[in-house]
């Protein structure tokens, strides 16, 4: 077995929006530092391309928008679990990112006069969502990827699957990865590492996430001793296409679409009379699920659903503003939204929690940064507003890139030792690939998905969650007895996916234990046995630390600057 060591000042793991933005920021700050951009897919295959609706930014203060308004919307949307200093910083930084993307070629949708257009979104009290039709993430990723090609000091490692993180004396010193093409284990020695690997993804069966989003960075950091913050807050997007779970963007409602129950009623009037369909996602998802539970959903071959009605918008508007939605609904559900409503139900969509960082993307480990969905800065708190996630990737991707350059300047490399390399080699190829057992890892994944869909869905109870935690722990034990069928080296996706399932089991346990322990309802975390928000006891962030017996929980305060928690009404 050949073991190659590659040296770069900065290693970025993940080449979606946050990773690409970090790479460009680092390269802009210094043409001298060498930057490795590692991703397990080609960069433009990342999940960020699935972001549809847009990116929130205050561009038109002359028309009535303001930073304070964007901050307030975000903090209220977060059910007051967001760190307000980070939010204030975030809202001020995002407009510049929109203009940079414009200057780099992003095909933003435009007003007649040529200025950048904006649309309405849930929980945003001004039409501040910048968009490129309903393919915003796709165009943002392609624009950043194309721009990244201009910098000679960004070196790409496409289709490298990262397996571990190396830390010594609480400072990061590199990562290991399998080059998928050859199957070789490669070590990247680095002064700084930026995690940008996205959310916990496919823990759930009914989900909008791409297959490749498996929480690798979260799990690797967690196992290496870095705490994960607020992982119990999982967002359910109101409108997942049935049966695939493909995202039907919130822009459908932003552009005027309705949600209807089987009686044809716009039921949101009973749950959020002011904001109606454009209340935040947690509110809308709960309303839809209530309609379904109470028997007012439509009955379909895949179970009950709610109708997302765009028929009154007309073909021209749908073609101009929502072309992907029309195409996807036709291809994946056999329905033309111009003619009939789209069958949808709430769907697991976003991980509010993540690797614990401060507002400068710094984790508790020196030289280790996290940006984008993998991180919890935290600006989303208990519930993220639509169009704030792509915005987060751009702002905090940039911060991470710049901070990493500052950090590595004048620093020297700490070597990854021979022992560490041999141990990783042994772990991967002898203990995981070489093991014989009688469990099929994909069966375990299926059971995990069923467990999460059943026990950690929109409405939770302590009793159900307790059972769910037990089930996850049982699956973890089963996992110790898996067998990987493919024993060959080159492009072994069987090995990669088995390892991803291992990552997901660890993360599921963190989500589950965090949710079970938090005896209140806040944002996306809703418990029937504790239906009220409890600021006295729970206005605090959860931190989960890895132990071999399962996560150990700790709590830290939320940063409140100017906005005191109030009752949340829409």
């Amino acid at each position: 077995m050949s073991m190659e060591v590659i040296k770069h000042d900065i290693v970025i793991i993940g080449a979606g929006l946050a990773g690409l933005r970090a790479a460009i920021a680092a390269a802009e700050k210094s043409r001298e530092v060498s930057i490795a951009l590692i991703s397990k897919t080609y960069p433009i295959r990342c999940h960020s391309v699935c972001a549809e609706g847009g990116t929130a930014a205050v561009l038109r203060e002359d028309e009535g928008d303001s930073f304070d308004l964007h901050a307030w919307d975000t903090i209220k949307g977060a059910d007051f679990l967001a760190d307000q200093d980070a939010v204030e910083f975030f809202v001020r930084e995002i407009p510049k990112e929109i203009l940079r993307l414009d200057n780099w070629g992003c095909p933003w949708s435009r007003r007649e006069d040529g200025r950048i257009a904006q649309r309405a979104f849930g929980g945003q009290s001004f039409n501040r969502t910048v968009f490129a039709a309903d393919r915003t993430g796709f165009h943002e990723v392609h624009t950043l990827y194309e721009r990244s090609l201009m910098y000679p000091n960004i070196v790409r490692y496409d289709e490298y699957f990262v397996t571990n993180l190396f830390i010594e004396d609480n400072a990061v010193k590199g990562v290991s990865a399998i080059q998928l093409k050859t199957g070789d284990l490669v070590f990247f020695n680095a002064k700084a590492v930026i995690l940008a690997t996205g959310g916990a993804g496919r823990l759930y069966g009914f989900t909008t996430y791409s297959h490749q989003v498996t929480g690798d960075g979260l799990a690797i950091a967690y196992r290496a001793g870095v705490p994960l913050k607020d992982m119990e807050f999982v967002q359910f997007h109101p409108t997942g296409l049935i049966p695939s779970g493909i995202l039907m963007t919130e822009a459908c409602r932003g552009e005027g679409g309705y949600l209807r129950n089987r009686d044809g009623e716009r039921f949101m009037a009973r749950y959020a009379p002011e904001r109606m369909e454009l209340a935040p996602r947690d509110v809308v998802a709960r309303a839809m699920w209530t309609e379904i539970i109470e028997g007012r959903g439509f009955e379909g071959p895949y179970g009950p659903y709610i109708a997302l009605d765009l028929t009154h918008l007309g073909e021209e508007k749908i073609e101009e503003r929502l072309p992907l939605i029309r195409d996807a609904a036709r291809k994946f559900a056999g329905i033309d939204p111009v003619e009939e409503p789209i069958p949808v139900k709430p769907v697991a969509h976003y991980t509010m929690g993540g690797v614990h960082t401060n507002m400068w993307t710094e984790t508790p480990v020196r030289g280790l940064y996290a940006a984008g969905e993998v991180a919890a800065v935290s600006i989303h708190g208990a519930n993220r507003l639509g169009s704030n996630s792509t915005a987060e990737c751009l702002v905090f991707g940039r911060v991470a890139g710049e901070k990493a350059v500052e950090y590595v300047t004048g620093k020297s490399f700490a070597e990854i030792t021979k022992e560490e390399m041999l141990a990783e080699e042994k772990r991967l190829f002898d203990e995981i690939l070489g093991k014989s057992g009688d469990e099929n890892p994909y069966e375990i994944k299926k059971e995990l998905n069923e467990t999460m869909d059943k026990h950690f869905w929109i409405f939770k109870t302590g009793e159900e969650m307790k059972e769910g935690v037990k089930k996850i722990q049982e699956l973890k034990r089963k996992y110790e007895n898996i067998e990987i069928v493919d024993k060959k080296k080159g492009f072994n996706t069987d090995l990669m996916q088995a390892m991803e399932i291992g990552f997901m089991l660890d993360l599921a346990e963190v989500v589950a234990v965090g949710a079970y322990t938090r005896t209140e309802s806040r944002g996306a975390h809703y418990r029937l046995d504790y239906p009220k928000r409890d600021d006295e006891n729970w206005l605090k962030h959860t931190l989960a630390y890895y132990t071999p017996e399962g996560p150990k929980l700790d709590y830290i305060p939320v940063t409140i600057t100017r906005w005191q928690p109030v009752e949340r009404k829409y």
Partner: protein
Amino acid sequence: MEREVLFRIRRFDGEKEYWQDFRFTARKGMTVLEGLYFIKESLDGSLAFRASCRMGVCGSCAVKVNGKPRLACETQIFDVGDVLEIEPLDNMPVLKDLVVDMDGFFRKHEAVKPYLIRKDDDYKNPKELLQTPKELHAYYDFSLCIKCGACYSACPASATRSDYLGPAAITAAYRFCMDSRDEGKEERLGLVSGSDGVWRCHFNAECSEVCPKSVEPAKAMQKMRLMSAIHMIKSIFR
């Protein structure tokens, strides 16, 4: 509605190539990609293929289905039939089973400077550039390329000349040349006018036919040829 289907998959394990048959019960609406996942998760874990978004945006899962390059995620099994022959894309080396080496394909894309070029590029102080909806539409459809490689697989010119830039790269060049914000047209035309560029195209237009995003690379190619001819004449008199 359910019925039995046959997936005949052309496999390659790094040493030998062979065909393998998989029979299973498919249901109405099931996609080729879901079929591949079913095989991997329940019948043979060693089957290798690429996939991610499963909604036709990421470009990972292009394969040949009964001879034609398509996105596995967008193709419903019953729309194809009861017997599906599934092969890796053409014109790129096969790494394993349905996975081809796309490094060369991406390098060709990089070679045409597929990014906005502006003299006043100012990283620290970006400014809003105006672009009317009409100017946007001049290039927008060509910005929808997902780099899945379907066109490249179907291209007869790419089959005969490995150095040919191919339809996707030239479409990318065209997309930026047509952007009202761009100032790099001449630079880019210089890159696509050589012997590995636009003049290699055979005009079979199969690229446009197989494109899952209706991008029409053949149209971009035709326009680029015209621009390229003007560029070459201009450079003679320069």
